[in-house]
């Protein structure tokens, strides 16, 4: 086995387990029956510790062990999982994450502050552990025994001690295979407490006959642990083929031990002594059982004892069932998903992109050659390529739920910090979007959520005065809408203060004092760069710090952001993002000799060019439709074509037109980013290569719309425009 690979797997799994642990911690206090979640939390810590032990990551083991001990007490009910403890455990989860990161980065020592955090946490954990320590054994013990009282302690069926009895005989080759039996015992000690060990030296020959590199040792171990049998067996996984391992569960009938003795190579009487020394059975029980056995026919009676006891201890049955179920589940999971490197996926998407371009080229040639058969086969090919493209892109789609769930923790922490009672409602977590988008949207969303908590949710007194429930709500929602994904962050707080924002904006010179602005335009001002740089923003009822950064990040993803608010009732920030950053369905239009691409999802309709004389808007079925002449915008030479067209584009519920010379139809468009030199160019979001090899520019609709809106505003303030709109 490649240890490096195994370590990588451990790191990945460790982080996943920590995520599970965190989400379980966040729901546990709200659950009526928390046992399931508590078990999940315990399992996570336990598994991390176990795997870390295998890799000799002592730091991780040492810390996690304390966490696990505390969780164990929570599990048996002797410690109550209250709010404080949840916070502590969340912090512990973070610290384990730190430790795992340190392993990943190959750092031997933690940074000073991390080490200090660890020490503080350990101290707090120990404080929690010690609190109930005095009464814990007294409470826990009787409860456990009560469950088994029904069994009459029959003479031959008396029960053994409440620890596991492990009988180990190592094979001759264990040492030669590079494994040291001692290290397994050390690992075992991390799973519980080794109460007693008897080292069997019977097989060890005298020095003269000794092959010093063979293993002759055996151990009888009394082991106290809450692990199941599979876990204990797991400790010996690496030598399982090379040793004889027998495990007798706690409180097994004495007959079990007798059977064990029968199966072991050593003298029964000696083994009996060993079991007594381990405290697994008492001498009296052993004698009684052995006498019973001797009275009858030995072979039959051993069987009788075994049959008579009917059941094995409940732990064994439970463990066996759980194991079976687990195996089944992992099998079905394995067959359902494959882990693939993101790099490989990116390469595939790139290739598909090239394929799309090549196919467009082939299609063009086929049309030019006027070969019907070729055209026909090309169209079949095009259909297939489209499907390949869609499924390739689908591979990169991930559910947004994972991102949303991260915010549960943010809400929990920030709300606590601010002393507000806030619930996070999540919906639409199954909505899928491109992995690269998901990765980049995390930070802006985080900002929005923090803002909603910090500035959005009003204080408890204010909420009471407004007749709202004391618990504030921040909601995250996601859904698909015409080729984009919409993510909403809403709160039921005080909403935005329209007047204050407007005053501030005028003060800062962002808008002219006399200008009439719609509500949404005013709210939109908070995303302006000049608006939110200073502290004044915070004393303005305001949302603010860094909203312009949020907008910039979202725009960089070819997305847009808007805000909508009802005073006193709350606010809702709407983020729209393209589903993918790689390939879109485009609508090609021509202006002069240039070709532009409009994302097809945004194209509403195409109409013949008309215009109100002298103005940049037209009458679309009684509505003012502002438009942009692309020829003028991009300064393209040549006279307009005889029959121009308007492409009506719709974005965020608003429409505007693009005046073009020719409509060239839809085509798949592979988006190639523009080089940095063109980063400042407004209105272009990328480029694409046409089948002919020419370059087409992809229009940035949101930016163009902004320009068109300004046109409309000019129109609205213009008397002639007003009459035209009424017409």
């Amino acid at each position: 086995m490649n240890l490096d690979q195994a370590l990588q797997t451990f790191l990945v799994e460790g982080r996943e387990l920590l995520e599970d642990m965190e989400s379980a911690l966040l729901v546990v206090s709200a659950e009526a029956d928390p046992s399931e979640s508590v078990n999940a939390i315990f399992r996570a810590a336990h598994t991390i510790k176990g795997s870390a032990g295998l890799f000799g990551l002592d730091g991780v083991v040492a810390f996690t062990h304390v966490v696990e001990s505390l969780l164990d007490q929570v599990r048996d009910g002797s410690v109550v999982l209250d709010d404080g403890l949840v916070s502590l455990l969340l912090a512990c989860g973070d610290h384990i994450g730190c430790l795992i990161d340190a392993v990943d980065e190959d750092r031997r020592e933690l940074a000073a502050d991390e080490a200090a955090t660890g020490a503080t946490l350990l101290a707090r954990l120990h404080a929690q552990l010690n609190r109930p320590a005095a009464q814990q054994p007294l409470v826990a013990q009787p409860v456990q025994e009560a469950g088994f009282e029904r069994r009459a302690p029959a003479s031959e069926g008396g029960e053994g001690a409440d620890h596991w009895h492990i009988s180990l005989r190592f094979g001759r080759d264990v040492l030669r295979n590079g494994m040291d039996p001692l290290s397994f015992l050390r690992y075992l000690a991390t799973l519980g407490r080794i109460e007693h060990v008897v080292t069997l030296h019977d097989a060890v020959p005298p020095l003269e006959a000794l092959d010093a590199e063979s293993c002759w040792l055996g151990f009888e171990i009394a082991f106290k642990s809450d692990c199941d049998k599979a876990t204990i067996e797991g400790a010996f996984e690496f030598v399982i083929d090379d040793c004889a391992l027998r495990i007798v569960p706690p409180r097994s009938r004495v007959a079990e031990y007798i059977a064990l003795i029968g199966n072991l190579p050593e003298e029964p009487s000696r083994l009996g002594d060993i079991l007594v020394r381990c405290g697994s059975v008492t001498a009296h029980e052993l004698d009684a059982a052995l006498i019973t056995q001797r009275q009858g026919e030995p072979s039959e009676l051993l069987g009788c004892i075994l049959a008579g006891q009917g059941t094995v201890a409940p732990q064994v049955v439970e463990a066996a069932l759980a194991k079976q179920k687990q195996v089944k589940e992992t099998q079905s999971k394995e067959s359902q998903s494959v882990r693939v490197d993101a790099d490989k996926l990116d390469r595939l998407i790139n290739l598909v992109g090239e394929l799309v371009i090549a196919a467009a080229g082939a299609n063009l040639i086929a049309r030019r050659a006027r070969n019907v058969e070729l055209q026909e086969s090309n169209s079949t090919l095009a259909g297939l390529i489209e499907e390949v493209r869609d499924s390739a892109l689908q591979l990169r789609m991930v559910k947004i739920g994972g991102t949303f769930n991260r915010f549960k923790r943010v809400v929990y922490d920030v709300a606590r910090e601010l002393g507000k009672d806030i619930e996070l409602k999540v919906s639409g977590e199954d909505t899928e979007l491109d992995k690269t988008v998901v990765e980049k949207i995390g930070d802006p969303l985080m900002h929005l959520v923090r803002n909603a908590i910090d500035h959005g949710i009003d204080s408890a007194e204010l909420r009471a005065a407004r007749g709202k429930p004391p618990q504030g709500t921040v909601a995250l929602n996601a859904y698909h809408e015409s080729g984009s994904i919409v993510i909403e962050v809403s709160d039921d707080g005080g909403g935005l203060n329209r007047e204050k924002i407007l005053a501030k904006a005028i003060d800062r010179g962002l808008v002219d004092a006399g200008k009439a602005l719609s509500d949404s335009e005013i709210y939109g001002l908070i995303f302006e760069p000049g608006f939110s740089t200073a502290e004044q923003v915070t004393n303005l009822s305001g949302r603010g710090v860094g909203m312009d950064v949020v907008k910039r990040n979202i725009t960089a993803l070819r997305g847009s952001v808007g805000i909508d608010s009802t005073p006193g009732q709350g606010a809702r920030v709407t983020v729209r993002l393209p589903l993918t950053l790689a390939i879109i369905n485009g609508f090609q239009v021509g202006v002069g000799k240039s070709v532009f691409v409009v994302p097809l999802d945004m194209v509403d309709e195409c109409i013949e060019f008309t215009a109100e004389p002298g103005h940049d808007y037209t009458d679309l079925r009684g509505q003012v439709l502002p438009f942009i002449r692309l020829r003028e915008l991009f300064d393209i030479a040549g006279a307009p074509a005889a029959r121009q067209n308007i492409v009506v584009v719709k974005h965020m519920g608003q429409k505007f037109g693009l005046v073009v010379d020719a409509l060239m139809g839809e085509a798949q468009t592979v988006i190639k980013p523009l080089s940095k030199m063109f980063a400042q160019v407004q209105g272009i979001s990328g480029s694409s290569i046409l089948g002919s090899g020419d370059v087409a520019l992809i229009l940035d609709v949101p930016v163009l719309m902004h320009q068109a809106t300004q046109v409309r505003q000019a129109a609205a303030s213009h008397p002639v425009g007003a009459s035209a709109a009424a017409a």
Partner: protein
Amino acid sequence: MSGTARTLALDGELTIYRAAEVCELLKTALAAPADLELSLAGVTEMDSAGVQLLMAAKKSAMASQRALRLIDHSPAVLEVFEMLDLAAHFGDPLLVPAAPH
């Protein structure tokens, strides 16, 4: 009981890597007709193979009616003895360091 005790000091690793070598060393030491004291003060590491060697040496010594005493257990040896509960088996007094770690 024969003769005065000889002392053999084992040091370094008492592990599988040196098992064959130490085995020969012990055989030679036990060939002499005298009790043997094994000083373990210099043992830095001990594994199962080391434990076996000590057990085998003890068996050989007993078979030829001689005593094998282990003295000056190093911390590494003490740790293993404690884990495997071997003190009683060898029956030699263990000197527990004043401030065990």
